[in-house]
Each structure stands twice: as structure tokens, then as C-alpha cells.
């Protein structure tokens, strides 16, 4: 596979306020993030030559591309929508990067936008996966709770130890999110509160689960040669990895539910393209898919941030906190932003982009000496994983 390392750069990004945005529609959310990005990049709507949209639940009539065109009046350019569950935002970004790297366009918009709160119910609903009969009544917490049960049993963690281990991830992310003005939830929580919270899908409790929110985030991409003509501090794409496993990946004989092929493959591809040998040492900041606290733990191990079966040690030592060796989910993650499915990948990338520019919204949470950042989404029952790696200089 050809590399596109350093061939494209992000020259502007925008991110809406995430939350229960009863007062605005999907179009308004798109306007909120895209006009911030126009200003950030110093471009105008007429400069956008193509647009890639990530959206899972497109309404009305399932046509997200045209709805975005309508809101932004981005008329008569190619607008291509993808719906790959939680990875949709990342895939929009990666598609935009590939189109620019291929030399088709100079300026491309990648946007993720999702209006979940108009669906009339608080969760993502039941019935996931491939069949209305085979998989009825499966929910997102139910799908991921399965990882926790298995992980605790496999590594001999008592239920109390296991719950406390993943609970610390939720405590960390809430602390980070409390310092992030655009986050949905900005409350600091204690481990005691996490452990006493009602169970959603055993063993996951309320604070092990991310919320459902509305939101939008976007990026404007150009080729690296032109990037500095827009701004002094463009952010370069170093590599990406995408892996779509079978929908029923868990039906594979021997699949043990604590580690996922798509996580391993997508991160490995991204590391290869970015020239990263030791991610634990070489990645300075990461935004990973903490839809549930246990998911973030599984990602630590499959991404090589922690040794297999040893994530607990790193969690206990604070390795992934703002002050730790590899800060993860510095903006509070899905835990605090909630998860407007198609928007999340670009929201995470927004955090990496700002941190790599040294422009975190509150100086208190700016990570020092950051050069390499990673963003990642993981979706489905789960089986889809998308990773992107960025840097603030070429090479």
C-alpha cells in the first residue's frame, strides 16, 4: 500500500458545542463547526471543491450529503456520505485526505454531524448488527459489557477490582472533560460515585457509559505544499489505518472478546505509515474510542500502549492522565462529549489538532512537548476501527 505520510495537512478545524442541542438541527450543527473551520483556515465556502460527510442516522430519507449541501449551500460539488457506525467521522477525514493526496482537489472539507436527540429516545436503540431476528434486543452497552465480563475472568480480576480499574478511566476522563468548554458533561466524579452508580449492562454502570449527544466537527484539508500558505502551523497527516471486520466477528471460533482484530490491524497499519515503532513511547497524546470505560482499556492493549493483560498497572499509575507518560482523551473523550456517532472521529481529531498547535482551549490542559497525536474510533458490535496519526512538523 502506498503511503500518504506528510502529503496532506489540516489547515482548519471546527467543532460545535456538544450536548442535548434541542434548539438546533443537524444543519445548524454543521454551520456551527464549518464556519469556525472556515475562519480558522482563512477560506471561504467557494474554495471548497469536495466534501466528505460522516453520518450514521441520516434524516430525512437517509440522504446526508444533500442535507449538508443544503445547510451550507455547498452546491454543485461532489459530496459523499459514508455510514460506518462510530468510524464514520474518521472515514470522512481519511477519504478527504486520500482525494487530496491523489491530486484531485486542493481544498476539501471533511465533516461529521449527527443529531441523535431528535430520535425521541435516550439510547442508540435495540437491534444492532445484521439481522432483525438474530440480533434483536442487542444494545450498545450490552455489546461492550461482554468485553468486561470476559476480561475480568480472563485476567483473574475480582468484580470489585475490575469495576475499580475501568472506573478509574471514567474518573480520568471526567476530570479532563471538566476543563473542556465544548464538552456535554463537565462534572468531576469520584471513583466511589462510579462504583455506586446504577448498572446499565452488567458489569457496566452509568459512568462506564458515554452519553448520547448532538454535535458536529469538521476539518479542511489541503496538500502539504500549499498548507503553509494558509497558516504557519498546519497539522500533517502521518498515517492512517482502517479495518472492517465481519459483522459477526465474534462468531469466529476462538475469538475471546478481550482483544479485537480490527483494533490491532488498524493501529498497526497507521503505525507503519507513520513510521512508529514503539507507540507507547512515540505517541505523545491520543484520543481513543471510550464509548465504554472497558473499551478504552481494551484499546490500550491492542494499540500497544500497555502490555497484554497489564493495562491495570498503567491505569493505577496514572500513565494515561494529563500528567502521565501518554495522556489519553485529554478533552474528556466520548465520556464527556457524548457520542454523536458520525461526528466523534472529527471531534477527537479536533482535540489532537489543537493540542499539536499548542492551542488547547484552556491552558491548564495543554500537554507540553507534543509532536505526535493519534485519534481513533471503534464501532459496531464492535468490528470497525479507524486510526489516524498526526504531527506538527514534516518528517
Amino acid at each position, binding site marked *: 500500500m502506498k503511503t500518504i505520510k506528510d502529503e496532506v495537512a489540516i489547515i482548519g478545524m471546527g467543532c460545535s458545542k456538544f450536548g442535548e442541542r434541542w434548539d438546533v438541527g443537524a444543519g445548524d450543527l454543521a454551520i456551527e463547526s464549518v464556519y469556525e473551520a472556515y475562519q480558522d483556515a482563512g477560506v471561504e465556502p467557494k474554495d471548497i471543491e469536495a466534501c466528505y460527510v460522516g453520518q450514521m442516522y441520516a434524516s430525512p430519507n437517509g440522504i446526508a450529503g444533500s442535507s449538508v449541501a443544503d445547510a451550507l449551500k455547498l452546491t454543485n460539488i461532489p459530496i459523499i456520505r459514508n455510514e460506518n457506525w462510530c468510524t464514520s467521522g474518521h472515514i470522512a477525514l481519511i477519504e478527504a485526505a486520500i482525494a487530496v493526496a491523489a491530486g484531485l482537489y486542493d481544498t476539501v472539507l471533511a465533516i461529521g454531524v449527527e443529531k441523535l436527540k431528535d430520535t425521541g*429516545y435516550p*439510547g*442508540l*436503540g*435495540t*437491534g*444492532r*448488527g445484521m*439481522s*432483525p*431476528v*438474530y*440480533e*434483536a*434486543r*442487542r*444494545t450498545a*452497552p*450490552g*455489546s461492550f*459489557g*461482554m*468485553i*468486561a*465480563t*470476559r476480561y475480568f*475472568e480472563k485476567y483473574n480480576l475480582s468484580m470489585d477490582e475490575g469495576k475499580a480499574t475501568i472506573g478509574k478511566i471514567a474518573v480520568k476522563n471526567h476530570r479532563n472533560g471538566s476543563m473542556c468548554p465544548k464538552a456535554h458533561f463537565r462534572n468531576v466524579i469520584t471513583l466511589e460515585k462510579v462504583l455506586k452508580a*446504577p*448498572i*446499565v*449492562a*452488567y*458489569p*457496566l454502570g452509568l459512568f462506564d457509559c458515554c452519553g448520547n449527544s448532538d454535535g458536529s466537527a469538521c476539518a479542511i484539508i489541503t496538500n502539504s505544499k500549499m498548507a503553509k500558505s494558509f497558516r504557519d502551523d498546519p497539522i500533517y497527516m502521518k498515517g492512517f489505518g482502517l479495518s472492517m471486520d*465481519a459483522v*459477526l466477528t*465474534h*462468531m*469466529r*471460533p*476462538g*475469538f*475471546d*472478546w478481550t482483544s479485537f482484530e480490527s483494533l490491532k490491524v488498524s493501529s498497526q497499519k497507521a503505525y507503519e505509515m507513520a513510521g512508529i515503532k514503539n507507540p507507547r513511547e512515540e505517541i505523545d497524546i491520543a484520543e481513543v474510542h471510550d464509548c465504554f470505560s472497558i473499551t478504552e482499556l481494551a484499546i490500550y492493549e491492542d494499540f500497544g500502549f500497555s502490555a497484554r493483560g497489564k493495562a491495570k498497572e498503567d491505569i493505577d499509575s496514572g500513565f494515561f492522565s494529563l500528567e502521565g507518560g501518554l495522556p489519553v482523551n485529554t478533552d474528556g473523550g466520548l465520556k464527556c462529549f457524548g457520542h454523536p456517532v458520525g461526528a466523534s472521529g472529527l471531534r477527537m481529531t479536533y482535540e489532537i489538532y489543537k493540542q499539536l498547535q499548542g492551542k488547547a482551549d484552556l491552558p491548564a490542559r495543554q500537554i507540553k512537548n507534543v509532536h505526535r497525536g493519534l485519534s481513533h474510533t471503534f464501532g459496531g458490535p464492535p468490528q470497525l476501527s479507524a486510526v489516524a496519526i498526526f504531527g506538527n512538523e514534516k518528517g
Partner: protein
Amino acid sequence: MIGITSFGAYIPFYRLDRDLIAKAWGRSSLKGERSVANNDEDSITMGVEAGSDCLKGLDRKEIKNIFFATTTAPYREKLSAGLIGTVLDLERDIFSADFGNSLRAATGALRAALDSVKAGSSGKTLVVAGDCRLAYPRSDNEQWFGDGAAAVLIGKDRAIATIVSSVSINNEIVDIWRTDGDKYVRAGESRFILNEGYLAVMEETLRKVLAESNIAPTAITKVLIPSPDYRSCAQVASKVGFNPETQLADPMLASVGHCGVAHPLMLLVSALENSKPGDTLLMASYGDGGDAFIFRVTEEVLKLAPRRGICKYLKSKSSLPSYNRFLSYKGELETAPGEPFRLFPSAAAYWRDQHSILRCHGSRCKKCGKSIFPIHRVCLSCRSKDEYEEVRYAEHIGKVVSYTIDQLAGRSDDPVVVQTVFDMEDGARFYLMMTDCDSRTVKGGLPVELTFRKIHEGADFHNYFWKCRPLRDGGELS
């Protein structure tokens, strides 16, 4: 000799203490407990269970007919017998027919099966009966009724009980009925229906079958008759000349309740379980007349493979905590609608995928030997295309690999769903809901079996599929 060659039964896991019903209404309890079908069960799913118990270890290709009797068919128009036959993995060229509308429907199906085998028109005939009738809240019948199913296989060879004689009485009377719009079973004035209905007609029916077979009452080992209450069956029995103390079988009212159409067959199965060669059994049913049969138990009964039957299903149980829970299981309460399903069923997809959905077939790769459920055309392990054989998993036992107790996934009145991943012995993996379980006792390694259940009502038809449950006989499989 024509007769019964196998049998099976099913009693739902849940029971309701009659004291709870009585307490809810501030009236006297009829004592004992009744069986209650779970909210994912109906007459079809219970029929599948009984049929499956009956066919344990038998070659299903030999079954040529399936008859299903119920007064509570989940479909007013659509064949239940055909669906049950498919789920039991019977051949496509079987003759299937439903019997209904009377509590004699099961004995009608049994008579038809015996006659059809006798006439030589067919091979083995499976007779299945299941019922879950609704009684008016607060009525005696709400306490008396139970839910259950039974099945018998009729054939020519190696009968465990051969048919000696069968008789019928037709008696037109409006005593127990539902009109086409009625949800609940209606009953006429109690003295009238008991004296002119049950007592008179059962006596006539029993006398007739004894006379036709020229057998004295004392020669009958067990008399099996459903009873509308604790006393009436004994009253009939003694009047005809039986000793109720020694000859009359327990009518299973205290332990299960009156299971409608299925009840005479359930009593028959229970008697066969405890019978020995040479026993003579008299079984009768009541409903707009009476049917009666005399069977003679043969040596073959000793060779029968073990099964659950009434005996084991009766012992395996859990008590519902409240009358409210019973009302919600029976669909008596309108509960808050839950979140809608994201995936909408399609009758075409349901039809197309029926080998997986109904017959419970997975695929075993002929190249690499790996198994998977449901059927996959391209092997997930070695990617061979269309190189598989279908394997039926319905009777396999699995072990739990992982699980979660989901508080969001269920109905609003029963929100907890145990989602379970388990592996069969050949490595085929299943990801199903667990039913009939105490969620607090689920753990990795727990042995589970498959059970056919109603999943949801999407697209205005019943969507049935498989769930798992902890083994109904507490671990020892037989």
C-alpha cells in the same frame, strides 16, 4: 401393533403461587401453584418444546405427519403445525394440520393419528398439543388454569403403549366457550355446566370405552382425566366404579393447573413415565362431549431413552414474585413502549433464512472443519465459498464464554436481558439472549441449551428465534 412409540412434555419454568392471586383480589386461594408461560412463550413455542422432548434421539426423517392442537393459536390464520414441524426439522413433504376450537382438539388429533396409521396411509405421526388460555382476572379459572404442552408419536412398530380402543361422545352444550371476539374463557352457571356437562358426559364416555373394550373398571391401572376442580374427577371415577384413591391419577391441578387442550396428553405422558409393561391406561378428555382411549403398556416402555417429560419439567421451576408480573406476562397490562427496534423484519428475509432462524442450522466448513452459526456461505476461518454442510444445533449443549446483564434491552415491564455468548462442543459460537434464568447465577462456563422463543412482533407478525437457558434439569442431562 399401533400405538404410542414415544412421548414428551413441557411445563414452563415459571409458577405462580395461587395465594398471590387470591391476595391480590382479597379472596380465597385454591391452593397450590399454576404454571405460567414466560412472556416470550406461546402455544407454538411450548409445542416445539414438547415435540423436541418426544423426538429425542429419533430419526426425524421417519415422521410423515404432524398434527398440532390448541385453542390459543398465535395465528388466527396461518398454520401452527407447519411452523412447529419446520422448527423440529421435519421433512418438507410431511402432512401438517391444526386441530382447534375445543378442549377435545388434542384427543381429536390423537384419534386422527391412530386412525391414519391404522389405515396404512402414513408412517409415524407426531401429535403435539399446547395451550395457554386466559381466564377473567379474579375468576376461579384464573387460578385453575395452567400453561403447558405435550406430544406423542404414533406408529406401528415398537409401540410402548398399544391402542386397545377409543370412543367419542358428541354433546352439544354451551358450557365453556369463547366467541370469535372473546379474549377470556367464558363459563356458564356452575351447577348446570358441572352436572349436565362434565359429570354427566365424562361418566357416559368412561362407561362407553369400558363397555366397548369389555374391560372391567378394576382392570384399569390408571384413569387419566382432566378435572375442572379438585373434586369432580374423583366423583366421576367412583361413580363409574374406579377406586379414586388407587386408580385415579393426580389431575395436576395443585402443581400445574388445567392446561387446556394439552392436559389429557400431559396426564398420559405422566402416566407413561411411571408405567410398567402390562399396565392398562384409560385416558379421556372433556369438551363439547368426551373422547376416551384405553392403552396397554408393552415391554418397549423399558427401552425408551430418557427424556424430561412431566417428571423433570415439573421439578425444574421458579416462582414468579408477584401477581403483577403474571399479569404482564399474560399481556393483561399495557406497559410503556420501549425503544423501537432499529432493524425491521421482512417476511421475505424471514422466509429466506428459515434454515438458520427456524431449523437452527449453522454451517460446518468442508475444507477446514470450522462451524459457525447462523449459516455463512463464505467460511469465516478459511474463506471457502459454498463448501459447507448444514448442522442442526437445537439439541446441542453449550458453555457460556461471556455475558452481560443488560438493563436497557428488554420490554419496559421486564427490562433485564441476559445477553450471552456461548460455544458448542464443536466450537460453533452463539450470541443469544438467555431466558428462564436467574440473572444473578449466570457465570462463565455455565452449561446452556437452546430454546425456541418469540423474539418480537415486528412487521405485525410473530418473529420467532432461539434463545438459550440454563439446563432445565439442573445440570444432569437426560
